[in-house]
Every structure is written in structure tokens, then in C-alpha cells.
């Protein structure tokens, strides 16, 4: 028996949708977090609600990356692949590292399962696999049934706890305590003690099975990470966003109105918010996305913080109304949890391909700030900043998240409510003088009078308006002035940004990897590792994609080459090239999947090669 110490491990739990994969993964994560590891997780659901059992389409996955060092992604290639059936193997084998390790439920490799997975039904897949990989196969179904031979539960219920066997076994491999999961099971099945005890029995059986067959297996030690001291929780991107919105509402003293129409992968924000009515949160499930955004505009006109969220197709439907909000100069936050496109595309997959739509996708000159979250926990402060900008600058703001961030999760050292930024709505001073709805302050922000406030009566609308008064105006010069003012107003938001900070490396040098959004973790890991290898590369990650920070230009021009990895066909790169006329290079991946750090490393090394060549010639 060997005990290796490793700094991080990626496990992929996979099996049929009904196998309890998500629960297994999240329990392992919680236990790892409690132990002190840093980690990052990502679920991978099948596109169908309940795809046919045993098929590749029906495979559910949960990826977990945990370590004794800082963890930024759910991991690239997998160290340990858990497969509950043949389909799970079929789907995920290519993801396994060359020296990776497979734990297989042999009961999931019978003729029926092999056939459903598309293997010849007389093949001995696991034995063949053994030639190239380390495989541990155990008949989880049988072992579970044995562990429960004294239970009074029916076979169906017994079999349902087989995921606990695997979990217990993995706890043994990584030397983890069963306490947290035991407690969890006791709480979860408080009303069904028999089921609780069966699950706990199986969990223990899995652990003990490890001890029993110990001799043949490597065990890994993954020490606690040196995390900043404090209190942590686990958080997913959609959760972080939802509670960030509630926090912003509290901090601005405005009731939150959330107008939304369900769409994958944004719906969970609606679900989460609708559970917090005790914060005065009003969720309105509208008849479509147009009603969702226009009801939010109506709510903002009524003095609430109007928010709406959707994904690609739904955002497309909202564009006309966003133009109205730009004209009205009312606070409005639009969240786009991006997914694979175009059109309905790959609704359950991730992508970053709505950036240009966010920046340019409206009729007329309609500038709007766009800010992007870069990880599950980062959504919280992104949501707050978006609301702060929307309210304090009286403008719609687009927040970009994506399926990867939304469904992924990570530990989060959460802040105290009192330390969150305050938000000050520019309320109109209605002191008896005439209220001019389009008079502006030095930031070019107009003031906000709300129905119910005497003396603030005024009319707004989508037609061009006269400066200051807001009356309808067809005057040519006024129009040009107003277009420029609206643009300048958005531009001036950049004056309040904190100075850019490098994620990794110096502020000048050979190569800059510039990212935005969910590529964060993969870039960070790649650049760290390359720097470890002595490569002169830095990492800068943009939260503000429109307007760009004022100090971006100087930074960009301090590098010989700029590489921009994106989960699209090259979008930020267009904005950068246009604005700064630098020959930034694009690294694209358009597979509905996040980058692996190895892919980014390879692209950086290619830049290194080009640079060397240039310098030599």
C-alpha cells in the first residue's frame, strides 16, 4: 500500500441520471471543504430531462477538483474517473489522464448496459481497459445489497444507496472522515430513519471495503490548503448572483423586482430569488422575455431596482426594450447567463459568444456598460457592482455570466453585510422648483423622481429628448448632443473603476494573456504553471468589458504579444484590436466546454516560439 502526497486531484463522478451522481459529488466536496481543501466543482447534466437509462445521452457527471493549493477550475483531465455504468465510461474515458485511475461499477457493464452504451455486447470492456489503465472494478450493486442484507427495505430502495458505497470507498482512498455525510444523511432522512441508516451502513461498507482490499490500491494524501482564515461556504454562480442582487437591493434601500421568464441556464436565479420573499423580493414570472424586461423597466420607473435575466435567445428578445431603458436612463440590470449558440444551440452547454451582442446588439447608438463575472463566487460582487452602476449612473447594465459559472461551485469566504459597498440612488430633490428629469450632474447622471413623489411628475419615453427638459425633440443638433452625452456618460463610469491589477505576473513583459469571464481559472492555472517554468507571461482578467478601464491601454502596450482566449470564435479580441490597434491574437474553443489550462499553455508556448523567431530573425 502506497501513500502518495499530491497537491491536487480531479475526480469525475459519472453514471446514469438516476444514480445519485450529483449528491455523491457534492457530499465529497463538502467533506473536502471541511477538511480544508480548496476546490472547484462542475456538474454536467444530460440535455434531456430524463434521457433513457443506460445510454450515453443519459450520463450525468460531477467534476471535482480539490487540493492543498489554490484551486481555480474544476480541473482539466481527470485523475480518478468513477463510472457507474458502461455509458459513463464511453462518454468520459477520453477525459482521463494517461496515468489516471478508473473505479468502475462492474454491475453496470452487463450485456444490456454495454449495448445501450454502444459497445459490442459480448466485449469485456473492463479487461481491455486494464491493458492501458489502472482499473478497479467492484460490483457495487452486489456489495451494496450484501451490506444491506439485514435491512427491511425493498430491493429498489436498497439499490438506491449504492452511490454511498462509492462515496465511502473514496473517503477511504483520500482518508476522509464520514462524519459530515453521516450527519447529512441523518438530517436529510430524518423522517425516514430506515433509509438514513441504510445509507450510512452502505457508506461505511464502502469505506471498510477500501480497508479490506487495501493492499492493491494507492492512497492519496491531499493536505489542507493554505486558505485565508475565515468562514467559508460553498456557492454556485447562480446562487451568488441571486444573493448579490438581494444584497444590492438592501444596500440601496430599494425593493428588488425581478422580472423573468425561465430559460436554461438562468432559471435557477428565479428559483433562488423566489425563495427569499421575506427580503421583500418580488419575483414576477412573465409571459415572455419581453414582458420580463419591460416589467422590470416599469418597476424601475416605479422606484424599485428592476432586474431581469435570461440566456441567449431570451436576451435577443430583450434588445428592443433595453434600448428603451437606455433612452429612459433608468436603473436596470440585465443578466445574461450565456449558453451555446447560435439560436437554441446547445442549451445545456457553456459559451461566451454573446459578448458582441451585449456591446453592440441594439438599434441606434445605444451604449451600455457590460461587466462579466469570472467564477461562481465572483458573481456575488459582480451583481452588486452591476446594481451600483445601474443605480448610481441611472443606466441599464448587462452582466455576463455563463453556464459554466452558473452551475459550477466553489468555496467562498463570504463578506459581512456591513462591509459591502453602499449604493446611493440619485434621488431627485423635489424642493418646489421645477423638476428637470434630464438635467445632469458632473457624471452626466440625471436624477430620479418616482411616482408618489409630489412635484416630480414628469413624462419619459423612447423618442429623442431635449437636453435637460426631456421633452420630445426632433432638433438635429440636440440629437447629436444627446447621443454624445449618452456615450460619454457610459464612458465616465470607467472613472470610478479601481486600478487594474494583474492576476499573475508583471505589468509588462513578453506575453500577456488577457481574459474575461469564465476562462479565469484555466488562464490563471496555465500562467502560474508557465511562470513556474520560467516563461515571461502575465495574466490580466477584465471584469469591465464596456467601457474598458482607462488604464487598460497602457498595460496592453507594455507587452510584446497579447493572447486572448475565449469560448467563442473571437469576440473580445475584436473590441481590443479596434480600440487599441494592437495585433492581439485570439485563442478560440467552441465546444460548449471550458478551456483546459493545458490548451492555454500550448497557445502561450506558441506565442513564445513566434517571439523567439522574431527576435532571432
Amino acid at each position: 500500500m502506497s501513500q502518495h502526497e499530491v497537491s491536487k486531484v480531479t475526480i469525475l463522478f459519472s453514471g446514469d441520471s438516476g444514480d445519485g451522481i450529483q449528491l455523491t459529488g457534492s457530499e465529497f466536496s463538502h467533506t473536502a471543504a471541511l477538511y480544508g481543501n480548496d476546490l472547484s466543482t462542475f456538474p454536467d447534466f444530460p440535455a434531456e430531462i430524463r434521457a433513457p437509462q443506460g445510454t450515453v445521452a443519459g450520463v450525468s457527471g460531477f467534476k471535482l477538483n480539490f487540493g492543498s493549493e489554490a484551486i481555480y477550475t474544476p480541473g482539466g483531465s481527470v485523475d480518478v474517473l468513477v463510472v457507474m455504468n458502461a455509458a459513463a465510461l464511453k462518454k468520459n474515458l477520453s477525459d482521463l489522464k494517461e496515468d489516471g485511475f478508473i473505479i468502475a461499477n462492474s454491475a453496470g457493464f452487463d450485456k444490456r448496459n454495454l449495448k445501450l452504451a454502444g459497445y459490442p455486447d459480448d466485449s469485456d470492456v473492463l479487461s481491455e481497459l486494464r491493458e492501458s489503465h489502472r482499473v478497479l472494478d467492484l460490483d457495487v450493486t452486489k456489495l451494496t445489497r450484501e451490506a444491506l442484507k439485514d435491512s427491511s427495505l425493498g430491493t429498489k430502495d436498497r439499490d438506491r444507496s449504492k452511490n454511498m458505497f462509492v462515496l465511502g470507498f473514496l473517503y477511504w482512498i483520500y482518508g476522509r472522515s464520514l462524519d459530515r455525510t453521516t450527519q447529512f444523511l441523518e438530517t436529510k432522512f430524518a423522517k425516514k430513519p430506515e433509509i438514513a441508516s441504510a445509507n450510512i451502513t452502505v457508506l461505511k461498507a464502502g469505506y471498510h471495503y477500501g480497508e479490506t482490499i487495501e493492499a492493491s490500491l494507492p492512497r492519496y494524501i491531499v493536505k489542507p490548503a493554505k486558505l485565508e482564515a475565515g468562514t467559508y461556504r460553498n456557492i454556485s454562480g447562480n446562487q451568488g448572483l441571486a444573493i448579490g442582487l438581494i444584497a444590492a437591493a438592501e444596500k440601496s434601500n430599494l425593493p428588488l423586482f425581478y422580472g423573468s421568464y425561465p430559460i436554461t441556464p438562468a432559471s435557477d436565479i428565479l428559483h433562488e430569488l423566489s425563495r427569499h420573499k421575506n427580503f421583500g423580493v418580488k419575483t414576477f414570472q412573465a409571459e415572455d422575455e419581453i414582458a420580463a424586461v419591460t416589467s422590470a423597466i416599469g418597476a424601475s420607473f416605479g422606484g424599485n431596482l428592476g432586474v431581469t435575466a435570461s440566456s441567449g435567445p431570451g436576451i435577443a428578445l430583450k434588445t428592443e426594450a433595453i434600448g428603451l431603458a437606455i433612452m429612459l436612463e433608468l436603473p436596470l440590470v440585465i443578466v445574461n447567463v450565456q449558453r451555446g449558440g447560435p439560436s437554441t444551440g446547445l442549451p445545456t452547454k457553456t459559451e461566451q459568444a454573446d459578448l458582441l451582442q451585449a456591446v453592440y446588439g441594439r438599434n441606434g447608438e445605444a451604449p451600455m456598460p457590460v461587466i462579466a463575472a469570472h467564477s461562481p463566487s465572483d458573481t456575488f460582487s459582480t451583481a452588486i457592482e452591476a446594481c451600483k452602476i445601474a443605480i448610481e449612473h441611472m443606466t441599464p447594465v448587462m452582466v455576463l455570466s455563463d453556464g459554466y459559472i452558473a452551475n459550477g461551485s466553489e468555496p467562498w469566504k463570504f463578506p459581512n453585510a456591513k462591509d459591502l459597498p453602499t449604493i446611493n440612488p440619485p434621488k431627485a430633490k423635489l424642493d418646489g422648483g421645477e423638476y428637470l428629469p434630464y438635467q445632469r450632474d458632473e457624471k452626466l447622471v440625471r436624477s430620479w423622481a418616482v411616482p408618489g413623489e409630489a412635484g416630480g411628475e414628469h413624462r419619459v419615453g423612447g423618442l429623442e429628448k431635449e437636453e435637460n427638459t426631456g421633452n420630445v425633440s426632433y432638433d438635429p443638433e440636440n440629437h447629436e448632443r444627446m447621443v454624445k452625452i449618452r456615450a460619454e456618460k457610459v464612458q465616465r463610469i470607467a472613472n470610478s473603476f479601481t486600478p487594474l491589477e494583474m492576476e499573475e505576473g508583471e505589468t509588462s513583459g513578453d506575453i500577456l494573456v488577457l481574459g474575461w469571464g469564465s476562462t479565469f481559472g484555466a488562464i490563471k492555472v496555465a500562467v502560474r504553471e508557465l511562470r513556474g517554468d520560467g516563461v515571461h507571461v502575465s495574466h490580466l482578467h477584465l471584469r469591465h468589458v464596456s467601457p474598458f478601464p482607462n488604464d487598460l491601454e497602457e498595460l496592453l502596450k507594455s507587452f510584446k504579444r497579447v493572447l486572448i482566449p475565449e469560448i467563442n470564435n473571437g469576440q473580445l479580441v475584436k473590441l481590443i484590436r479596434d480600440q487599441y490597434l494592437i495585433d492581439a491574437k485570439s485563442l478560440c474553443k467552441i465546444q460548449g466546454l471550458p478551456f483546459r489550462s493545458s490548451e492555454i499553455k500550448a497557445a502561450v508556448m506558441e506565442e513564445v516560439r513566434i517571439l523567439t523567431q522574431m527576435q532571432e530573425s
Partner: protein
Amino acid sequence: MSEENITLTPKDFATDQDVRWCPGCGDYSILKQVQTIMPELDVPKEDIVFISGIGCSSRFPYYMNTYGMHSIHGRATSVASGLKLANPNTSVWVVTGDGDGLSIGGNHLIHLLRRNLDVNILLFNNEIYGLTKGQYSPTSPVGQVTKSSPMGAIDHPFNPLALALGADATFIARTADRDPLHQREMLLRSHKHKGSSFLEIYQNCNVFNDGAFEVMTDKKGRPFTTLYLEHGKPLVFANGEKGIILDGLKPKVVNLGADYSESDLWIHDEHDQTKAYILTRMFEDPQDGLPRPFGVLYSEERPLYEDLLEGQLVSAKAIKGEGNLDALIAGSNTWDVK
């Protein structure tokens, strides 16, 4: 506040903006009546909001010295829904046209009606797209020649009140631009109704569809083509000469006098949905001699959407306690790193 309001006059509800409808447009009369009833609502001016979409009619908010929004085409109803939920204290008036409200905005309209928010919807029906200079609308009759239907429209038109009833509206009524007194009554009734009020106002577009409602609005023909409904009163028209009876499920015109007296007639019951349905259908077929009904065809009390929502907020607070932001941020599952 409402004390001050008592001293308000219709003029206080006019803005300094030039009214820019065509001379002779029916919209002027509606504007006047709306401004006239405003002081009678007993609602502080600052609590009144007019929301419109796009169309000639939708210019309305610019002329009302209240809060107002001239939003985008078809979306007045959904903007109003958000506003009413955000700020339930407001008296919300939606001004929309047959294109704005029934063509592009048809969906938001029927959804607002089923949800029953307390919003007053004024549908200015001129059976034409005015602002875009004269195309047929979803209420234009088959055969109407317009810029976009040079050989006559082939689209069977909506019956707006039947549609609203089908969408479970709790208040449907009809009036006309040329009948200021009735208009005022209907506006006040709309205001008083707790729930979504759907008021169809026949409005003459004298430029692109002049005389669309001539038969129903001109002085001479009117008594014979129109029927004024009053709750609890028999259905009498033609200057008291004719009445309507229900022959099984079919309405029938009878002459009052020899064979029929008022007591034989159909007595209007605003709260009878089936009768309301029959009234909405006294519409398509002028040959049968049935007049077109004006007034409140149907009204019903149903819980308000905003009240139900507010109720959930209150009971959520009662159950879980006022939201605690720190507790929300921490969630139910934390651990410490030292």
C-alpha cells in the same frame, strides 16, 4: 395631499406640450374627458401614472401632467404590470391602440387581464394604424381598403371584448369618443373597479379611417344602432321603442308596446358571464338588427395579483422573519478556516 387635490381642476392635468394630433382627431375628446375626471378620482396627482405604447393614441401621456411613460410598441401593459407591482399605491392607466394593444401587444394584454392587476386599460380603437399612416389593424373589418390592403383586408378581425372575456377579464366595457358623458362614466367605473379594467373606446381617425363608427356615433342613427347598458335595467334602445329579449340563448329585438313591455326584456346583469358573452357577440352581424352594446358588459371581483404577491411577502416575513442579509449570505452550510 388629497386635501390639496380637492382644489385641482382638469387644467392642472394638462402639460405645456403642444397636442399634436390631427385637427379633428377623436383623441382630443378622450384627452379632455380623462383630464376632466382626474380631479374626481380622489387620488393625489403624484400617484397617477399614464403608460402607453406607440401610436397616435400612445402620445397621450405627454399631455397629462402626471407621471407617465411613452414606452415601446405593444408593451404598455407589461410595463404597467411591473410598475403596479413595484408601486401598488399608484393609479395606473394604460393608453393603447388597436394596433398597439391587440396586434403586437395582444399577448401582454391577455396575460395582464388573467392576472387581474388593478390597472385601467383604455383601448383607443380606430380600426386603423394611425401613426404609421393608415394600414389595416386587427379590428379593421374584412374588405377594408388601406395602404397595405389595396384589394381589401382578408383578416377576420378580433372582437376585442370577446377576446378580453375569453382571457378571463374581470371588467369589460365600451364607450365612444363622441359621447363625453358616457365616456366619463365609463372612465370613472374603470377607475373604481378593483382589478384590470378593459375599456374599449371607439375613436374616429378622421384622416385614415374617417367615419368608421358613423352608424354608431352619429346623432340620427345612434338610437337604433346602439344600446346603453345599465346594471339591473332592461335592454331598451331606439328611444324606448325597442327592447331585447333572450329567446333561449339568442338575443332578439322586439318592439315595445303591444306585445312586449319592459318587464319582458332581458335585464342587464353585469355579473353574469354568459350573458356578457352574448353581449360581446352582438357585434358581427348588423343584419340581425341588434344594436351594439355600450357600457359595462361584465364585472367581477377577483383577488388582485398585487395583493396576492404582497400577501406572500407578508407571510414569508411572518414565517421566516424579516430577511437577514448576513444569514442569507452565509447560507446554511459554513466552515471555518483558521
